[in-house]
């Protein structure tokens, strides 16, 4: 029986350690114990994708992931996406295309796309739209998000 446990995991490439109740979600661990508030707290029940992070490279919804289930795993959040202090191609494209209005969903979209373009650099329009079915944006109407995603994909395939 483990009501409270010491968790060791690797967050954005750095070892992290926290003493948490077993009922802690990964989202609570990241935001409240580790102070990484870039991952957003949206619907709380796995519908909206705002809390998307990567666990061992795969997208996971942090709000419905038990933190203890990630013991020993590699977790990547929006805070770890920048490359050498510069925004990643996806972040830069979101900025360039103004692909955010309130911006609350943006970290989730960036993490979903980070995984998609790593796994499937040649993803076609159908794959792109399918992957973005995991995330909800209530402001933009998705047009600029799709434009930013296509642009980021082109830049990642042909770095200037």
């Amino acid at each position, binding site marked *: *029986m483990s009501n409270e446990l010491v968790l060791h995991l690797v967050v954005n490439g750095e070892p992290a350690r926290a003493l948490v109740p*077993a*009922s802690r979600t990964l989202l609570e661990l990241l935001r409240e114990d580790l102070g990484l508030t870039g991952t957003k707290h949206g619907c709380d*029940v*796995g519908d909206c994708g705002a809390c998307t992070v990567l666990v061992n490279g795969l997208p996971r*919804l942090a709000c*419905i992931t038990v933190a203890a289930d990630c013991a020993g795993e590699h977790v990547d959040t929006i805070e770890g996406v920048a490359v050498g202090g510069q925004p990643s191609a996806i972040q830069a494209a979101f900025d360039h295309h103004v692909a955010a209005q309130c911006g609350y969903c943006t970290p989730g979209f960036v993490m979903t796309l980070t995984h998609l373009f790593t796994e499937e650099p040649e993803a076609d329009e159908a794959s792109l739209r399918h992957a973005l079915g*995991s995330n909800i944006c209530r402001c933009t109407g998705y047009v600029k998000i799709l434009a930013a995603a296509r642009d980021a994909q082109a830049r990642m395939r042909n770095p200037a």
Partner: protein
Amino acid sequence: MLPLPRFSWEAPDRLPDLVRLAAEPGARLVAGGTDLLPSMKHRIFRPGTLVSTRRVPELRTLRVGADHSLSLGAALSLRELARHAEVRTHFPSLALALGSVATPTIQGMATLGGNLMLDTRCMYYNQPSGWRAALGGCLKCEGTLCHVAPRGAGCYAAHSADTVPVLMLLGATAVFATPNGELPIAVGELYPEDGREGPRCPPGAVLVRVEVPAPQRAVAFRKLRQRAAIDYGLLLTAVAPTPEGWEAVISAVAPQPIRVAAPTREALADAVHKAVQPLPTHQQASTWRKRMLRVEVARALASLPA
């Protein structure tokens, strides 16, 4: 904020420990958690201990027979299975059903075993605790009245597991581990008539794997829903030829998936329309869902070779 209720956590890495821990009072198995954890946040379930199935090798094993039969570990993710070359090539309807669950992100978390063991769903049940309390609960949870069928005999919450209609037509078997050895149960036998119960898991048993016999016939699958992502099905339709004619399995309409047979391909849509009565367990009108039964069967048949 919807915090999880307090529980303790176990993540055994041996099957005997998983079976032992699952049988302890207040324990509940969790795999991907994509349905269980939202329900716990809504205070539908308050298990004292969550026992994770994810570290047990037997539940993460995929075996392919020389005849292309499959043995699929219950804790394999829907994503892994939907992308597996053998599944895609020899069981395209299963790949389609796996890939129709919720969203791509959820498919990477959710498991086959979790999908088979999915609780029944209803618009009066899968709601936050305050919402449910305002109606005084329902027959399935915290109350005595079914809001779907107040004069009915039981709970009509809908079986909603996308993979099950296809698995039934493929003749799949769920294999459980118990303290007394393995217990195989045909997938179609897992779902009781009353929606209160949810899937039948024998006491102290753990779903270890799903066995799919060698492919014998083409199966077609369709999921009717409002949006192409996230939504649970409004109708789940699987159809296939049989030696005597044709059959369909329809779900998302009752606590059990409903099997309907017809002598000819042309007669199947009418037979389904006659046998299946969707109830107002969903926000969409059940009269419309009833009309869509014929359409969905016709669309499923049209996706099969003539």
